[in-house]
């Protein structure tokens, strides 16, 4: 009833190839976009911006980048955090060397550097596969974090060894640094995330996406039908690292405000990998659902006891939180091993048939 697709006839190729051919999907997306662009900015508190909205979007973007590589092209990577770090440090160097530069342009350009590094570390993928490739990307992870620590030029020889985001403005409005307001930062993040998501949806539907999927499903067969594996794998590394690099720049510039090298260490890589796996490999929507579960849920759970007036010590809340989130992850993986996106797809299929399943 609610999701009936019967009677939605397509009369042109253009309509048939639309991003969201089912009308209800498009309406749902419009509602979500309306919330994101209008309702949240008007109603959200500073706390919600800083701990829910901005981090969820940035984490989702990083997971999206990883998903291009792992979910679409089938190349397992454990170096996501290091590539985020490349983006963050590149952005930091650009805005400190060229203070006149538009910060949003700097963020978008910083992805280019991490794309370059990503391609360099992606070259072994032409010869090695699976777990062996994961080890090669792990090497990238350790090497790059070591580099962030030792190459003092990267952090402008600060005594503390950390990078701190300066106050940056566009047309007199602060967009980064302590002077920037959360709403401004939210809109910058939202704009970039929307843009890159749209780009990814189109890329994965197109020629490039199809070569990636062919490479993922069976690389020998793909090679036999004339797909250039080198091109396919390296473009996946480049696009993935670009998005991850932009996410890294946003992570530090639009949210954290400061970063030390060990922030980009392996726990962050795993966190993003979990978001991608729990959300669903090979899906775009899954990254958002995964980020909401892994990043958003602990914050919400942490505020529940206080809101209900239950006196629990904060250390206890933290312990409970870890247990609850952990069991939820196991629960979701048991009921749907292919991730939250697949769960949503099943619900949607059921809804389309409802109330007359056959």
């Amino acid at each position, binding site marked *: 009833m609610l999701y009936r697709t019967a009677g939605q006839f397509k009369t042109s190729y253009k309509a048939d190839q639309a991003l969201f051919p089912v009308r209800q999907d498009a309406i749902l997306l419009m509602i979500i976009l309306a919330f994101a662009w209008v309702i949240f900015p008007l109603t959200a508190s500073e706390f919600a911006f800083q*701990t829910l909205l901005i981090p969820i979007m940035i984490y989702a973007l990083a997971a999206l980048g990883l998903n291009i590589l792992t979910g679409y092209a089938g190349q397992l990577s454990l170096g996501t955090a290091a590539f985020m770090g490349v983006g963050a440090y590149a952005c930091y160097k650009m805005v400190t060397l060229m203070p006149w530069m538009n910060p949003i342009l700097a963020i978008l350009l910083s992805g280019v550097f991490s794309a370059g590094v990503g391609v360099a570390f992606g070259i072994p993928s032409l010869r090695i596969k699976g777990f062996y490739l994961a080890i090669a990307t792990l090497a990238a992870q350790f090497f790059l974090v070591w580099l962030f620590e030792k190459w003092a030029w990267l952090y402008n020889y600060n*005594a503390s060894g950390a990078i701190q985001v*300066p106050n940056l403005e566009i047309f007199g409005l602060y967009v980064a640094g302590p002077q920037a307001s959360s709403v401004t930062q939210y809109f910058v993040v939202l704009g970039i995330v929307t843009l890159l998501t749209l780009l990814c949806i189109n890329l994965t539907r197109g020629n490039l996406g199809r070569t990636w999927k062919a490479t993922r499903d069976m690389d020998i067969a793909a090679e036999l039908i004339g797909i250039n594996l080198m091109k396919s794998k390296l473009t996946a590394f480049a696009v993935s690292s670009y998005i991850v690099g932009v996410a890294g720049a946003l992570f530090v510039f639009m949210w954290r405000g*400061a970063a*030390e090298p060990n922030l980009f260490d392996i726990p962050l890589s795993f966190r993003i990998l979990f978001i991608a796996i729990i959300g669903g490999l090979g899906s775009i929507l899954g990254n958002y659902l995964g980020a909401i579960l892994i990043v958003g849920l602990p*914050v919400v759970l*942490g505020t529940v006891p206080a809101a209900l007036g239950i006196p629990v010590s*904060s*250390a206890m809340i*933290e312990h409970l939180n870890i247990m609850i989130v952990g069991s939820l992850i196991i629960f979701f993986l048991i009921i749907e091993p292919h991730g939250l996106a697949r769960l949503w797809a099943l619900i949607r299929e059921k809804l389309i048939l409802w109330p007359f399943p056959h």
Partner: protein
Amino acid sequence: MKHFSKLAIATVVAGITAGSAMAQELYTPNLSYRTGPFAATGIPLMNGQADYMAMLNARDGGIGGIKVNFEECETGYSTEKGAECYEKTKDRAIVTQPWSTGITLQVLPKTNIDEIPILAPGYGFSPMMDGKTFQWAFNTPAGYWDAADMIVQYLEGMESLEGKKIAFLHLDHPYGKEPIPLFEQMAEEKGFELVPIPVGLKEMQNQSAQWLQIRRERPDYVVMWGWGAMNAGAITEAVKTKFPMENMIGVWWASHDADLRIVGEDGKGYKAISWSFPNPDAPVMADLKTHVVDTGMTQSNPEEMSGVFYNRGLIISAILAEGIRVAQEHAGKPDISPSDLRWGLENIDMTPERISELGLDGMVPPFKTTCADHTGGSGGWMLEWDGAKFVQVSDHLVPNTEAYAALVSEKAKEYAEANAPWPVNETCEM
């Protein structure tokens, strides 16, 4: 509809009473870390802080007649959680206590905009001493550069450092790197050789490579800037490699009793500089026993309560309480705002008399803060492990702050420039 409006009125009334009840307390959240990799060192500190405030609430009914709400927000030492806690508490908080260098780095620029004092006793950024630049940040009563200066002073008190070699074993992290500029400056002045030996966060528990280097370099002294698991790792490694313990000196965060208890007698002679010292005979300990321990409000235990870290927690809360009291007197009302508290923290005068009035005899050296000096320069004592506990082995050491005043203002200026526009205190004339 009638029912609904009644309900609405009831809610509003309840909200207002709850709101006014909330206003009648001093909300001083603590970003604690009782979980995670650093919990072992965090718990005694957090217990000390919480117990002192609980004691004030029970004995005096709070400070100036209103209760202190010393709520903890758990961070697990994670920067991400720390920033979340800061956002959660900043609307009502009169002070923020960030507790990790990472969180301090992140929160410091925000407090300058939100105008909330940030209290980082004995940690945080040494140039915070410059109160004109860092008008909302306090690292009372002593900073890391004070510690470095005092350690060098102590060593010089025994013999000239000319031609000596000092290995600086430190955590490869903003915290560990902080004293390096000052040590370099002193090495040049006093003619000793400094060998910095970093310990990566991943190598904290296995420092065989670092100690191999120490054996090769044969330094006369090892100065250690460690935290968490690194301290226990270094101390056991020093014992294993038979490094003479009396030549190993730590900063105050490397003076956790539990780390030394692992090696016991073998750790004899290990030293650490400290601005706090446990004095079981101090009057405050008796008050704690009657009001907190005997009523079952503490989460601590007798062994922990005799340790350096628990007692440091007490002192940290005592400094905050003193700042609040001064602020209340100045503002003429008990219910103070964050900016009142800033004035209070800038005008703490811990004279020896005041220290005994508070019942803290022998637990903290006297110090005095001003709007230009947010550290107070308490100095400290050299503590030594006697095989079972830490004892004092030096007189009160006072850092020679003039020697690095130029470095403080240079680094403070650098920070302000990098973060421009950075509002500074222009009314302070000192």
